[in-house]
């Protein structure tokens, strides 16, 4: 017998304390507005808005809805677009089909995700006296960016050989 703990269940149990819970025999069709953390282990179809709170979709949860929450944890199935102010956590065995706008995303191995991920960076307050050149927002660059390579220029060093056809 494996001694490896069942992480999704453990994590799911850990997230439930003190939450509103829709159990696995509950079906909701319509709009959910929540002012507290919510766990859904049943079925929901519609919209879910809880922008200051955390939504957890349990392993039995089947949600077909657009979701706006501070944080979303998916262990079950979610069809719909998701917008989070903080993060989305897609756990192993979870299935998510939809577009995501979030500040942070965690995807465990074994999760299925189909959709677009748009990372929304939090605005960092800038000093009022900053030089104009420094005031434009800049994308986060890689630590070791290298000069751009044009598509027709010679490529990087090749292990065994290379060829190119241009039209």
């Amino acid at each position, binding site marked *: 017998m494996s001694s490896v703990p069942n992480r999704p269940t453990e994590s799911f149990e850990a997230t439930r304390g003190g939450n509103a819970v829709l159990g696995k025999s509950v079906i909701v069709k319509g709009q959910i507005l929540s002012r507290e953390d919510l766990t859904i282990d049943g079925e929901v179809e519609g919209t879910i808005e809880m922008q200051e709170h955390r939504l957890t979709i349990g392993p039995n949860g089947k949600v077909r809805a657009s979701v706006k929450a501070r944080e979303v944890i998916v262990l079950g199935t979610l069809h719909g677009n998701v917008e989070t102010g903080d993060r989305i956590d*897609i756990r192993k065995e979870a299935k998510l089909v939809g577009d995501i706008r979030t500040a942070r*995303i*965690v*995807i*465990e*191995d074994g*999760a*299925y*995700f*189909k*959709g*677009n*991920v*748009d*990372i929304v960076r939090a605005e960092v307050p800038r000093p009022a006296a900053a030089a104009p050149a420094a005031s434009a927002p800049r*994308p*986060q*660059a*890689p630590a070791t*960016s*290298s000069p*751009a*390579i044009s*598509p*027709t220029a010679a*490529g*990087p*060093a*090749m*292990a*065994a*050989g*290379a*060829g*190119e*056809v*241009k*039209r």
Partner: protein
Amino acid sequence: METRSSSGLDQFCSLLVERPGLTLLDLAGANQSTMGFLTNLGHRVYSDDFLLQMDRAFGDGDFYENQSDPIKVAQFLDSALDYPAQHFDGALVWDTLEFLSGPLLETVVRRLSHMLRPGSYMLALFHAEERAETIPTYSYRVSDRKTITLSPRGRRRPAQFFNNRSLEKLFQDFESVKFFLTRDHLREVIVRR
């Protein structure tokens, strides 16, 4: 899991550091490594598991025979490649094209071309061992701009093998085709739309 250095990925990434805010397609299936790398560069990532989509569409019965069933093909294309024209600035298709038989392969390549903006790149991988009956499949993850991590997904029989000439023919509608033959019998192909 193993890692390999990738000249093709390095070339693909040259596009990513030139311009932020690109929309990229990754067909390896969602994973933290690729998602983190691409979004940290300021890009949007559209993720799907193309091999899984193939298995869902054609896996019940003979995988390649099913690829000539027009109903199954239509469902597959609607499910896996239903994107607007010129929606993406780059695509990572990895080795998935090796598991598509003739007519469907051509249709998929045409769709990919349709989905990509002019000037964008697509990275594809092809095994070069012509006598192998099955080839290893992986979930490919981008570790950094020159390194791929390979998570094994078993072995599969490829639909066909490609040499340089057949790759040029396959991507004849693209502006350019550049290929790198590596020591581990893998052709890395960068095509420019």
